[in-house]
């Protein structure tokens, strides 16, 4: 017996509600009970957990990434849910509206997926390979550095200063990435170097 009723169908007649009531009164409740799976199965069952830190502000709330597939086991992992980590002393499992919406950031439609180049004057991005992009970048850097690095100032002091190419570092990369970045930028002699500390 199918008790699936449409709204229009209900309004159409004497009322399935009445019929239902009738059925209920006659003790046919068990039939419908099979349909009453109101409680959704718990969606984190059989997901893999990974401890992480919220990427937004400096409260640095502990979060747990729940994924289908486990990166630690070498599997492809798709994050399906993100929730606050109750064990974390600062946030104790809570998250703000940004943190609670992290999943939508991870899966944002506007994530970058492939290297792209926009040529001078062009009105579009064109997809290129990583190799092509990185070689091009190294070439542009070298040409500019070769031409413009200042080895000595007017007083003959060694200054090894490169001011014509600059680097703006991130605010949410790891300390380890920051250190790698520092090494690469400084060793090139770049001084136009800043981060997001002020804005």
């Amino acid at each position: 017996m199918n008790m699936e009723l449409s709204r229009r169908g209900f309004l159409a007649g004497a009322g399935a509600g009445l019929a239902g009531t009738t059925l209920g009164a006659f003790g046919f409740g068990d039939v419908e009970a099979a349909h009453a799976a109101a409680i959704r199965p718990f969606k984190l069952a059989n997901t893999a957990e990974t401890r992480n830190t919220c990427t937004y502000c400096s409260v640095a709330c502990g979060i747990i990434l729940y994924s289908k597939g486990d990166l630690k086991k070498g599997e492809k992992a798709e994050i399906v849910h993100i929730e606050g980590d109750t064990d974390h002393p600062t946030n104790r499992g809570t998250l703000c509206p940004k943190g609670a919406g992290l999943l939508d950031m991870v899966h944002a439609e506007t994530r970058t997926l492939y290297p792209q180049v926009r040529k001078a004057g062009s009105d579009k991005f064109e997809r290129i390979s990583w190799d092509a992009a990185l070689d091009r970048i190294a070439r542009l850097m070298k040409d500019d550095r070769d031409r413009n690095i200042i080895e000595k100032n007017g007083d003959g002091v060694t200054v090894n200063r490169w001011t014509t190419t600059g680097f703006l570092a991130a605010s949410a990369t790891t300390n380890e990435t920051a250190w790698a970045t520092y090494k690469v930028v400084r060793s090139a002699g770049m001084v136009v170097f800043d981060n997001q500390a002020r804005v």
Partner: protein
Amino acid sequence: MFPPFPNPPTTPTQARFGEGDLIRRSASSVTPPAQRQTEVAKLIDVSKCIGCKACQSACLEWNDLHEEVGVNVGVYDNPLDLTPASLTVMRFTEWVNPESQNLEWLIRKDGCMHCEDPGCLKACPAPGAIVQYSNGIVDFVHENCIGCGYCVKGCPFNIPRISKVDEKAYKCTLCSDRVAVGQGPACAKACPTQAIVFGTKEQMKSHADGRIKDLKSRGFANAGLYDPPGVGGTHVMYVLHHADKPEIYAGLPNNPRISPLVDLWKGVSRYAGFAAIGAFAVFSVLHSVVAGRSKVSEEDETNAKRLADHEGSNGSQERAST
């Protein structure tokens, strides 16, 4: 600090309540379980709420709901109202306290109150579309929902919303799936300031006592708990700084109660249901009184009437037997 729930399980976990714990079922009768589960409740302390909408965000994410990107109409409220996807919204009220002349920004998280005496369930004509568990959670069973909108009119808090997509009613489930595995609702888990806490109803009342004492010490002489007796108490309660004036919190009803017409309708359907045709006439009248013009469009009404006139009760018999 109110002790938070441990992190959720990732191994399959036996649900702690289910069909056997039903105490009410719309348009049908159930045999209540011999033992009632400990009643649960969510406590929303408006005085601790910072209006951050983490609850809204967590609710959308946990329940896999997709809300549309709206517009700004000149206020912070967004979405502007509850929708089939937004099962909870923050309502912001700028209120000047007439005594102190100070501005108070009252921010109330709105959503299903999980009434002990649920008007939605009582008004619902679809068998099993609304159920109430012995722990107090009132839940909608969408398979059974017919989208008539009676629950909206039956609700003293104007909470359920009918989806235009699948024509079914939606509201907060109190995260029954989370509660079933020993967790609190997603909104309570997320709430940064623990303005939302979850536990047994007794725990929540005693926690509220402490909060009310603190508020009184800060000059809120009328601080109090909102657990309205008119609906038998609720499983979502508020701590209000001005409990004597709940209506200043974006129209929180002062003394909510189920419309007497819902009881009337229930009485009719229960006992007159046997005589389907006769009852339909009664029902039609009641329908327009109870549901008014809310979720049922005039076109539907007309069509329904036409169909009823032409097809009589055949339709219902047909459906009931398929």
